[in-house]
């Protein structure tokens, strides 16, 4: 009995020893790479944002001028998201919102969209999706310019009932064989515009920068 106890104690000590070493290695790597990771994530995000918010539209530090938006049904978000505000000479010019289309062909489609202060879309991009490669993935700009069809559109250009694919009596193109995907995207973009319309005033309020949400994937 005593021997068994001693053996298991020894095993435990051994495991703990390796766990401590492992933790130390991980912690030091984490601290060594942390800044670089934050920087590359920020760079990637800025790249995406400058794709949809043309550079002449803002002169502020867009990555710092943020606003935390709680989960919202119109945006389709289930967690708080961060809105980036673009300003030109101190005047609000555009806001970058995250939105989710919950009803894609194979699950959620994550979108990022930039709305000009006048309610016009500056650009939309798909950030993540699981649509069928070769069929539903034409919503990616890499595959097809379809997503650019949103540029310059607003709820004034197209009235609310027109925010559908042409097959359903709306104004937007689609590709035969994959209508569920564009339907979901169009619906989500439209709802995000409704959200913008309802919250236009609060979205541009100047405040101290929201604490950056740490993202650990």
């Amino acid at each position, binding site marked *: 009995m005593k021997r068994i106890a001693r*053996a298991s104690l020894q095993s435990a000590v051994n495991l703990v020893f390796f766990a401590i070493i492992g933790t130390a290695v*991980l912690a030091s790597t984490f601290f060594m790479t942390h800044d670089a990771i934050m920087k*590359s994530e920020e760079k*990637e995000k800025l790249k995406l944002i400058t794709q949809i918010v043309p550079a002449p539209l803002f002169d502020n530090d867009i990555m710092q001028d943020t606003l935390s938006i709680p989960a919202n049904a119109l945006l389709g978000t289930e967690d708080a998201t961060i809105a980036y505000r673009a300003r030109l000479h101190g005047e609000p010019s555009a806001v970058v919102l995250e939105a989710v289309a919950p009803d894609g062909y194979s699950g959620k489609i994550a979108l990022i969209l930039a709305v000009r202060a006048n309610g016009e879309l500056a650009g939309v991009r798909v950030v993540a999706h699981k649509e069928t490669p*070769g069929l539903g993935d034409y919503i990616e700009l890499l595959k097809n310019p379809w997503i650019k069809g949103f540029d310059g559109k607003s709820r004034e250009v197209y009235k609310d009932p027109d925010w559908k694919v042409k097959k359903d009596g709306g104004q937007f193109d689609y590709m035969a064989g994959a209508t569920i995907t564009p339907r979901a995207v169009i619906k989500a973009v439209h709802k995000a515009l409704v959200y913008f319309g309802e919250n236009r005033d609060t979205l541009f309020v100047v405040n101290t920068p929201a604490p950056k949400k740490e993202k650990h994937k």
Partner: protein
Amino acid sequence: MSLQEYKDIFHNGMWKQNTGVVQLLGMCPILAVSSSVVNGVSLGLATAVVMALSGAAIAPIRSYVPNEIRIPVFILIIAVLVTVVQYLMNAYMYGLYVVLGIFIPLIVTNCIVLARVEAFASKNPAGTSAWDGFSMGLGLTAVLAVLGAMRELLGKGTLFSGIDLALGDVAKDWVLHVIPDYKGFLLAVLPPGAFIGLGLLIAGKNWLNLRAARKRRSGALAIPIEGGCTPAAHG
């Protein structure tokens, strides 16, 4: 450790005991990330690095780890190494990190890593263990590269798409559009294409082995004196 031994280990990893087409270990990443050359090679190399590091890390401590808890200790070490690699990729190869996504942390559960540690590193010195892990990983990379090329070529008509994610913006123009105006072949991109492609690779490898064996045998019959000297048990 003689040069011949290193050569044998390398040959073992690349061909004789190839993880992708002989041992058939680590099928999940093979099937999932082999949709393009760049994805496949990147994950293959990441796995090779992890395998080499884990071989080198585990071999020197093999006599200090009690036999009963060796598996948890090995897994712990492998998990630490994979996470380190993941951090490094996240920091310095962000595009690729996003593309490979969940498959980087999943290297931990790739049974080939633990299999080599258990079968080789726990019985051999650090240098050979690292070399064995690296060779095995390189064998996996080769399979992923060939399978990725097959699927990418058939599915999208390109080669090396996404290479700028791995090597930065300089490589943006390196993508080969082998078949211009290709409409795409969905089956090759989807998982069934991976299964069919891997089946063809295994068949191809077996065919090459058989052919080599047959050649050896007929060679042995024709020139009996020389043939008698060749060790037949090498196939």
